[in-house]
């Protein structure tokens, strides 16, 4: 993917640049908001990663200007302004995701991956009613799950969790992403809410079939691979 990073701190910028490049992305790293606005309007990126407090023009204004110019590229805020108010402000201005500093690189990687996928699949925009991976099938209308033809009885949250993992299409979902998507929780519970639900889900979808579907990526999250 082609990415743009707006980050004025050299060390953090370098780390993000190196990390994303290592992942195989093409990264433009800019340190000034005005340059970022210019680059964002001219070039076609898959995802923009914006800091909020940057010289020249702050990240929020860059986003607003881009959206006013009908640039629909997905935007991820990566900022020290991590308060709920700031997050809401960023998302209301047209941001697609918000990651507060300090962050784990795995979190950034997963979120950028999810946003990139969104921009490529938004072209198709087909309303799917069925999802499937391997021999697992989800009927989204009837909220029913079958594996290898057998009905698997999932409760609401287990179904939502499995749906989120299947929809991410082979990309890692972090704990925080799942908390936001499935439980609508924007804070980090100290207890193992995600882990417990994953283990319950495994008990239903893996245990009777004796294999592993949901892979745990240590220090990162969970993924279902085809």
């Amino acid at each position, binding site marked *: 993917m082609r990415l743009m990073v707006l980050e004025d701190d050299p060390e953090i910028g370098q780390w993000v640049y190196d990390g994303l490049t290592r992942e195989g992305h093409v990264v433009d790293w800019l340190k000034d908001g005005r340059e970022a606005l210019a680059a964002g309007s001219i070039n076609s990126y898959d995802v923009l990663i914006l800091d909020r407090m940057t010289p020249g023009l702050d990240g929020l204004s860059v986003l607003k200007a881009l959206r006013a110019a009908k640039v629909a590229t997905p935007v991820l805020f990566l900022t*020290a302004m*991590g308060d709920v108010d700031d997050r809401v402000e960023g998302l209301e201005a047209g941001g697609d995701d918000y990651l507060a500093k*300090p962050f784990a*690189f795995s979190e950034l990687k997963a979120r950028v991956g999810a946003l990139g996928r969104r921009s490529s699949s938004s072209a198709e925009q087909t309303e799917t009613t069925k999802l499937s991976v391997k021999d697992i099938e989800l009927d989204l209308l009837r909220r029913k799950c079958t594996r290898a033809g057998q009905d698997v009885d999932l409760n609401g949250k287990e179904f939502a969790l499995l749906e989120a993992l299947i929809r991410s299409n082979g990309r890692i979902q972090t704990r925080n992403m799942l908390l936001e998507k499935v439980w609508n929780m924007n804070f980090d519970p100290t207890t193992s809410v995600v882990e417990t639900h994953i283990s319950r889900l495994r008990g239903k979808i893996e245990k009777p079939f004796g294999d592993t579907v949901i892979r745990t990526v240590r220090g990162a999250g969970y993924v279902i691979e085809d």
Partner: protein
Amino acid sequence: MSLRTEVKGLFRSSALRLSLALSVLFVLILLVAGGVAQYLLSEALEDQIDDDLKVRFETLAVQVSQSLNGEDDDDEPEFEVDLFGDPRQSDNLIFFASFQARSGDTLGFSSRRLFSRNGHRTIPLKVEAGDDEVSLWRIYTGPAAGGRLTVAQRWDTAEDLLELLPGAFIAAGAIATVLTISAGIGFGYVAQRRLGKITRALDEIAEGNLSARVGALGRRDDLGDLASHIDATTDRLEVLLRQTRELSINIAHDLKTPLTRLRVRLEALALENEEGRAGETAERALAELDRILITFDAILQIARMDAGASKKRFEDVDLVQLASELSDAYSPVIEDSGFRFEFESTVPAATVRADPALIKQAIANLIENALRYSVPGGAIRLIATPKSICVADEGPGIPDEDKPRVLKPFVRLDEARSNGGFGLGLALVQAVAQLHKADVVLVDTKKVAPVGLTASLVFKA
């Protein structure tokens, strides 16, 4: 403002209370002054009448003895009768005299009482036969020409004069009271209007709107001075608070950048040494750093809420629905930790104005506290009503004297209750409650040990 609250406010106005108190004091002073005046006046009148009587007595005594000495052998002494006067012959008589000779014969009006003893007295006399009316007379009796002479002056008339006095005092008192109270109501009304402005501004300030001002109150007096002082203080507060907010954002930014760099380096280190001991150490350092960051965020969040965070994300929240979402999220966690979990809810009947994300976080904190501090085996219950959410555990509970204390930041009880947390969980719940004008209520779950703790977030009806 409705009329009722205005009237209610008026009665609480200090100006009206002051005027009422002054009226009462004034009436008391009038009563005492009236009493004293009446007493002094009646004494003075009595003295004057007594002096008069004495003079008349002496004049008459001389005349009586002269006329007695002049006509010795006459049985019927002849005086100048008009000197004596006779109350029986005239209604309007205010003065008379009677003489009782040694023989017992009486000249003029006769009554047993008239000559009973010497000196000054006030006696009632029935002067007209058949008439029930008794009139009061001041008399002086003394020896004259071998007999006794009594001179009398009507006392009723003097008393009539005295009776005018209380009337005058009551009228003056009533007029003064009415005037003072109406002035009090007037002043009270005006003062209340102005105090109302101050109160409203202070209420707004207390709610976190530091741009609220009392403004000009019209006159330059003590209330006007108070208003301008409040405004000046609020100006200062607003500046300070803005500085504090900016400072906290700046601290957040300034500290978060190095913290981010620190995290970045540790993560790089862990990545580079995935299989070595250094990698393990880096992982542990990362975990420790993340714990610090969580605390750091909690402090900032509490500080922002205490500073009167905005309420723009407030919406109508169905607490029962919200609790049921939390129940979905936490019931497997609670059960897998070895507790029984029970979710009790009433049928939702109402919503509250709240920030759902904050309420969720607060209740999650309560649930996590219950998990952290109680012993597996017991039950953890989540109870939701349209106005409250409670989390009840069966752990060691909190002693009554410590209950208010634990809601403050960084307060942890003994070691038994301090495994892990930084003492910010309940403080955050308290900050969320205050932002919602709700209460955090801590009570014992049971009467027997372990008592357990039931923590509730209760919204005002």
